[in-house]
């Protein structure tokens, strides 16, 4: 009773976390610097159409931003990824819960999932091109087909891991089914959903570019192919850099903070 470890150690833990944060930030910055130096060195002895230098890429990026379609292309790609992802979450989550809560159904449909997971994104893109032509639908479909099985599988696993003891506890307090769902099932499935959604978004983002190179007339993927066709390697680099920055921003600006907040109850390993 007299020992209060959690409270007494709160302050030093916080400052230790701060200094840890600074150290990690310095490490990351130095890593970026090393990569930039390597890039610069490599670009010295290679023609620009194979590996453009930092300055050339920077100019291309400025040109891109100034060209006017930059935000439009970025926006349309982002829209397609998000649309496919949201559709995947909306359909994958209830299906996962259904398969997780019904053992026989789950057993029956299990092979379908394995098959879905082995089909290449390129095949989906070709099918989508046949079915939807050059349109938003093509990219959205490909993102959906990549993301949905991932979310479904994770939610399925999550709903199988619900602790029967917690359900019994809720029942002993005479909670309704809806409340058991909201207070026991949902918090148990949430971490699984989150890791599935995160994976799905990353995959969706990557395959969306593949889909756009063949199935659309705008968007980042289309511009990338255009640049490649015209051997504008500096523009390819500029787009790549933009995408990397966007993903890093998404990861550390949105996903990590959400994850830290949602799963603050977990023991730090």
């Amino acid at each position, binding site marked *: *009773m007299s020992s*209060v*470890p*959690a*409270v007494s150690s709160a302050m030093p833990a916080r400052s230790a976390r701060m200094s840890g944060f600074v150290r990690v930030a310095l490490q990351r910055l130095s890593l970026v610097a090393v990569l930039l130096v390597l890039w610069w060195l490599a670009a010295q002895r290679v023609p620009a159409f194979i590996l453009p230098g930092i300055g050339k890429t920077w100019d291309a990026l400025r040109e891109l931003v100034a060209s006017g379609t930059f935000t439009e292309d970025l926006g349309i790609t982002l829209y397609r990824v998000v649309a496919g992802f949201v559709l995947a979450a909306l359909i994958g989550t209830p299906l996962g819960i259904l398969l997780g809560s019904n053992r026989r159904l789950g057993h029956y449909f299990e092979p379908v999932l394995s098959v879905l997971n082995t089909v290449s994104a390129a095949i989906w893109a070709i099918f989508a091109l046949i079915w939807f032509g050059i349109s938003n639908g093509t990219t959205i479909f490909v993102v959906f087909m990549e993301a949905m099985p991932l979310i479904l599988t994770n939610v399925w696993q999550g709903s199988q891991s619900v602790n029967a*003891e*917690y359900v*019994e*506890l*809720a*029942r*002993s*307090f*005479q*909670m*309704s089914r809806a*409340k058991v769902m909201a*207070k*026991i099932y949902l*918090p148990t499935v949430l971490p699984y959903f989150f890791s599935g959604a995160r994976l799905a978004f990353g995959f969706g983002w990557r395959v969306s570019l593949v889909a756009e190179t063949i199935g659309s007339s705008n968007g980042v993927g289309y511009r990338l192919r255009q640049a490649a066709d015209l051997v504008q390697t500096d523009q390819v680099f500029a787009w790549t850099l933009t995408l990397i920055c966007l993903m890093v921003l998404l990861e550390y600006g949105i996903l990590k903070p959400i994850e830290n907040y949602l799963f*603050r*109850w*977990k*023991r730090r390993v």
Partner: protein
Amino acid sequence: MSALPMRIVAAAESEPVRHAVELAHVTKRFGKLAVLDDISLAAPTGSVLAIVGASGCGKSTLLNIIAGLVKADSGNVRIDGVAGKRSDDTRVISYMFQEDRLLPWRTIAANAEFGLEAESLNANVRRERALEMLHMTGLEGFENAYPHELSGGMRSRVALARSLVVKPYILLMDEPFSKLDPQMRSQMHAELLRVREQLKMTVVFVTHDVEEAIVLADRVVVLRPRPGRVRDVLTIDLARPRNPLAADVAETVRHVRALI
């Protein structure tokens, strides 16, 4: 001077005893396996009733039947004089499981509140009552901690607070302190008896630990295994607080152990 105790005894005898929990001829089978056979027992209102027996004599099933989590095949279960279906009033009975079953994603205060969430109470009222119970079980200062940050004994207290937050009239416990070390356990015993006094609860608990039964209970039901039957019902008339090392307590423990 000597007339006074006499009068009290007379008064106690003339008043009919109210029972918070009363079972008559309860039988339960799981498939072909007979688990409980003709169980009759009663816990007077405000008393502590212990159910002891070797493992496999259906103690937990019996408790689940009283809690309404499991239905008896035949026989009669009366909770505070009401037979048959339990009323929907959740505040009547609270169940404390063998494991603490704290939800890891909730803070201590939120875990204590969980018991109140079946009702549609105002969140502030809920929080207030949870904090009051955490205070009563000696957990102030830990409201915002998470379960994994607490020791086993403290987690047990949280589970107790969660059971008590509904202000139960009857508290059922299934070997609730069996995973604690002896010192923590006797501390929890004292805590439980104190809280019971404050809330005027009837306590029915199951244990395989005879010493725990003798220290806590006014009445001990000894079960015989396979199928579970009542072997004996003993009234424990020892003065409180009971020290397990005292001669009279130890003697009673020996006596009851011989019955199992």
